[in-house]
């Protein structure tokens, strides 16, 4: 069987995405939800329960005193942060094994993903004035394709590097050329397998080439792209690929950004990373 067919087939071996996040989102959408109702949904999922407590105690969410029960966490985190925490906890379990081939350490892909998710919110505040939960999820999942691609690129690394060095391909283009599919396209298909909405799927599929998505008004793939490139430039999660990435020229103009805005965002991310250690430590 060709590599691409084996890769596509292995999507079906990925377990279903936990429904906890959706259930909680539905509850929070009701005007008369109660804290214990929400807490009961979360308690049903033991791995999420443990992680929610860790995250509620994180400096990133501004915790001052120790939070030791799910009820307290639900009250303390508030609607928006509660959803962020549940989504982060739910996604983390798929990243436990890392992505050998791309990264030496199993935790590296997770750290990169969290960094890109935090950066997506910094950029979103700058560009739209608001944070965006859907964007956060898309950014956290942008490299999910690597959890499958890792073992395949490891076998073909020599050939991929050859194309990057001698044919001036981007790492993504080299993946596609050697294996018949790249990690962004594959990630979009995994998100589809999990029934994520189309805007999240698009943001994942086009996170290296937002200019190829013919939906001009969609800014999510652009922000994920920018957040990803900024983290790669900072050396967060770029061990194998390096900066063999395509530059998409119209980016700064599209959002009326200057170089300085990108530099300031990198400084802000450094602070967020220091305050978000608990987000890293949940896997």
């Amino acid at each position, binding site marked *: 069987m060709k590599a691409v067919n084996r890769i596509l087939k292995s999507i079906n071996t990925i377990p279903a995405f936990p429904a906890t996040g959706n259930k909680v989102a539905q509850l929070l959408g009701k005007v008369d939800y109660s804290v214990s109702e929400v807490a009961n949904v979360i308690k049903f999922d033991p791995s999420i329960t443990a992680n929610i407590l860790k995250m509620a105690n994180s400096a990133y969410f501004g915790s001052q005193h120790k939070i030791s029960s799910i009820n307290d966490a639900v009250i303390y985190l508030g609607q928006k942060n509660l959803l962020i925490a549940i989504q982060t906890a739910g996604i983390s379990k798929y990243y436990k094994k890392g992505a050998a081939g791309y990264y030496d350490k199993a935790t590296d892909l997770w750290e990169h993903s969290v960094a890109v998710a935090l950066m997506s919110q910094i950029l979103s505040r700058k560009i739209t004035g608001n944070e965006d939960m859907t964007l956060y999820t898309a950014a956290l999942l942008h490299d999910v394709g690597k959890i499958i691609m890792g073992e395949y690129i490891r076998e073909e690394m020599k050939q991929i590097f050859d194309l990057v060095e001698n044919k001036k391909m981007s790492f993504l283009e080299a993946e596609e050329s050697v294996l018949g599919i790249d990690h962004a396209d594959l990630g979009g298909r995994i998100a589809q397998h999990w029934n994520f909405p189309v805007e999240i799927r698009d943001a994942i599929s086009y996170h290296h080439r937002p200019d190829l998505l013919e939906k001009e008004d969609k800014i999510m793939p652009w922000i994920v792209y920018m957040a990803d*490139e900024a983290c*790669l*430039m900072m050396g967060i999660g770029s*061990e194998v690929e*390096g*900066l*063999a990435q*395509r*530059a998409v020229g119209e980016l700064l103009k599209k959002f009326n950004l200057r170089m300085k805005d990108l530099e300031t965002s990198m*400084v802000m991310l450094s602070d967020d990373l220091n305050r978000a250690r608990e987000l890293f430590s949940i896997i």
Partner: protein
Amino acid sequence: MSDLIVGISDFKISNTAGDVIVTYALGSCIGISIYDPVAKVGGLLHYMLPDSTLDAKKATDNPAMFADTGIPLLFKSCYKLGADKRRMIVKAAGGASILDDTNFFRIGQKNIMAMRKIFWKNNVMIASEDTGANYNRTVRLDIATGKTYVRTSGGEMKEL
């Protein structure tokens, strides 16, 4: 005898033979290694951005984040351990950029320019450097010998 790890916007110095100072994952950031072979004192800086006027408060809290505050701090810290400016061997690696980079995301080039300007102004020669291109680098400085090594993503470790 140990590995001293330098994070992003961070630096370490040592005069203990047997110490190896190392920084991983330089993308567009730059690693500056300095070494005085007589005093056997060395240091390694990993700065992220070229110019501290971007954020004066941050430059005070964390001078190692910027070239223009981090490089002087690296030198001064080594002087305190007995290093002498005239004997310093300076090496640099990093400053990578993404492909067909035109006028944006130019932080790698700006970082290289900033470093050259600072060294030129201060009459400091860069003994060797491996900068630019589009790959990641890891840099190690061996305090016993002063040798600096650089490893690129997918490549072998080589002496700088």
